[in-house]
């Protein structure tokens, strides 16, 4: 490339934009950019012109109007008189909730399945292959529908638990008097916070801090003296303070599901709705299968010599996996894991298939229909998903940076 070290003496000529390899790339990129902008502008103008011709306009005023519809799962206060914006927020939180839950369970499932796929046990290995292949190769919408149907069919009707004010002998009893698995969801007791609950909370935090400190102590002792302290005190330190505080103060009581007051449904307690359960399970097992493959790839990427070296030092197989293989495998696993988390978030938009009120169902479904503002709501919806996805990416990239090979 003499051209770079030896610039032509006669300076810049316009023809060099095409003929000179130094500028040609830039020229083409610039032309492509202009073409792209013109195309987008054309589409945008076309849209605006056609909307105007049809007498429609783009306006987000509807977000401030009362939504008028009810939502079955709301993490924040919401009534049918709340605004469309509030309904969108309810949907957004529901999306985040199911995505968060599914990311955690999918990761756990995926790591277990991925590790077990490399198990020396033939049966376990093959079982995991069946899991991965079956779930990976069927569309997630089908899994959502199947699991939704299974939950509906297998659960009892909540009416079977009801006494109808004592007039009827219920066909089923609550499990331990507290839990019920029905075709509308899972009922469990709620925590009733009485006076002094702050103390219990502080005890819980103290327990967690204490447990972490003990683990740190165990590790330091191991590294400094080679002596391995037992791990059971971790659990004692974690649980004892909160149990003691609760026993002494009795601050937190359980509010049990109520089977008497209503004729249709169990009241009170906490209901984890069927739509949430179905969607959460489906997203977890589906994405878990993909993560299992990522994990397997990550483990296989760690050279066999590492395992053999660790074994020759006398480490047991479980410790080899935890201390030698997985930490190195993480470097390979994390980047594709990020895209799986994004997939979970985006796939959660299929929620309406089981009646889960995520943001696609509220803002992009009911609000869109009731207001007829298709373009506005869809643009807003795209913006929401874009922001959520970029945030997840950002967080996971920070984590990736901490496990990546340090290049000094």
């Amino acid at each position, binding site marked *: 490339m003499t051209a770079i070290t030896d610039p032509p003496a006669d300076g810049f000529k316009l023809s060099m934009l095409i003929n000179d390899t130094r500028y040609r790339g830039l020229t083409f990129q610039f032309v492509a950019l202009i073409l792209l902008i013109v195309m987008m502008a054309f*589409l945008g103008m*076309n*849209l605006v*012109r*056609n*909307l105007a*011709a*049809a*007498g*429609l306009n783009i306006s987000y005023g509807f977000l401030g109007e009362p939504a*008028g*519809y*009810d*939502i*079955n799962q709301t993490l924040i206060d919401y*009534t*049918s*008189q709340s605004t469309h914006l509030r309904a969108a927020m309810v949907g957004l939180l529901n999306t985040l909730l199911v995505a968060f839950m599914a990311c955690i369970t999918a990761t756990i499932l995926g790591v277990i399945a991925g590790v077990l796929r490399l198990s020396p046990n033939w049966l376990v290995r093959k079982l995991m292959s069946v899991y991965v292949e079956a779930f990976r190769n069927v569309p997630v*919408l089908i899994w959502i529908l199947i699991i939704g*149907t299974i939950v*509906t*069919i297998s659960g009892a*009707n909540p*009416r079977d638990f009801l006494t109808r004010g004592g007039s009827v002998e219920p066909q089923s009893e609550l499990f331990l008097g507290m839990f019920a698995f029905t*075709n*509308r969801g899972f009922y469990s007791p709620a925590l009733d916070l009485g006076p002094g609950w702050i103390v219990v909370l502080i005890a819980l935090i103290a327990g967690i801090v204490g447990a972490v400190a003990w683990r740190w102590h165990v590790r330091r002792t191991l590294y400094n003296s080679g002596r391995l302290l037992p791990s059971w005190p971790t659990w004692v330190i974690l649980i004892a303070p909160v149990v003691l505080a609760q026993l002494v103060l009795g601050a937190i009581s359980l509010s049990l599901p109520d089977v008497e007051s*209503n*004729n*249709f*449904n169990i*009241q009170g307690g906490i209901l984890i709705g*069927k*739509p949430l359960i179905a969607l959460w399970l489906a997203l977890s097992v589906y994405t878990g299968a993909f993560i299992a493959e990522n994990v397997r790839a990550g483990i296989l990427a760690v050279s066999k010599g590492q395992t053999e070296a660790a074994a020759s030092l006398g480490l047991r197989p479980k410790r080899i996996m935890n201390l030698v293989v997985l930490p190195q495998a993480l470097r390979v696993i994390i980047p594709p894991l990020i895209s799986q988390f994004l997939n979970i978030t985006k796939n959660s*938009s*299929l929620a*309406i*298939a089981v*009646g889960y*009120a995520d943001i*696609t*169902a509220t803002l*992009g*479904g*009911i609000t*869109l*229909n*009731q*207001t*007829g503002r*298709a*373009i506005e709501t*869809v643009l807003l*919806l*795209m913006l929401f998903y874009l922001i959520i996805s970029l945030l997840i990416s950002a967080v996971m990239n920070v984590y990736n940076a901490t496990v990546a090979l340090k290049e000094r």
Partner: protein
Amino acid sequence: MKKSVFLGTLTAAGVIAGAAAAATLDDVKARGKLNCGVTTGLVGFAAPDANGNWQGFDVGLCRAVAAAVLGDPDAVEFVPTTGKTRFTALASGEIDMLARNTTWTFSRDNDLKFEFTGINYYDGQGFMVPKELGVTSAKELDGATVCIQTGTTTELNLADFFRSNNMNYEPVPIETNAEAQQQYLAGACDVYTTDASGLAATRATFETPGDHVVLPEIISKEPLGPLVRHGDNEWGDIVRWTLNALIAAEELGISSANVADMAGSAGDNPEINRILGTEGNLGEMIGLEADWAVKAIQAGGNYGELFEKNIGENTPIGLSRGLNAQWTDGGLLYSPPFR
């Protein structure tokens, strides 16, 4: 998946809307087929039969319009739409008219820029519950789980009804009637709510219809009718007066059986003559052949015949005429004069 559909409709809406705003009649004639939006399947109103032919009350209207415009009641392309997709389909020009038990409301007429061309069924929202629940009134539904088709006016009526009666409920939003039926039968909800006619039609397809009751309360007015896009008044007039012709035909005693005879030569009744084109030039005024109404009536009979054949008391759906009787029989059907 959902998103790509939306984007598709979005671009389609953008590109086609301008072109399709006017002269729907010319488009239909050039195409040789009427694109008519119907439900994805509600027995009695619009559903394919065992041979795949669309049958039903709304379908009958589509066929009448096709017969009036194109002379052939089978020149219809039926486009199944859900509560969610119907308005985009119409706005984008994918369909020429929508006959999908759609409630005529202020905001749909004005804000969504559609034109309702009449009412072919006066309906109201009702509730269906399993008989074993022992519920006799909708006021007893406090705490119930309710299956509801999403994107419909029933969704809003339901919220209003429970709020004004100080009751709670758990909504289960569902996309189509078929899914709602399945969820209701599986016990995922205690109550199914939609238009009373829809409830009757749905119940008729159950294995044991007798185990379910439709509660007496009708909580809303649901005037259902065909609609077209704003801005093409000629086309709107054709759909409106085809419906009126069917209604007037019943009032005047013109049926599919005698319409050919009556159209053969001018009779004693001048209004019948004008409708059937043996007197005056109404066909010319509306931009169609002189015998447009004859063909529309021949397609599936007059309003009463369509009603009896598809949803009347002798069908499994078993709806009585009620509000949908002629005004002369104490109902609300009242066609403006053909003059």
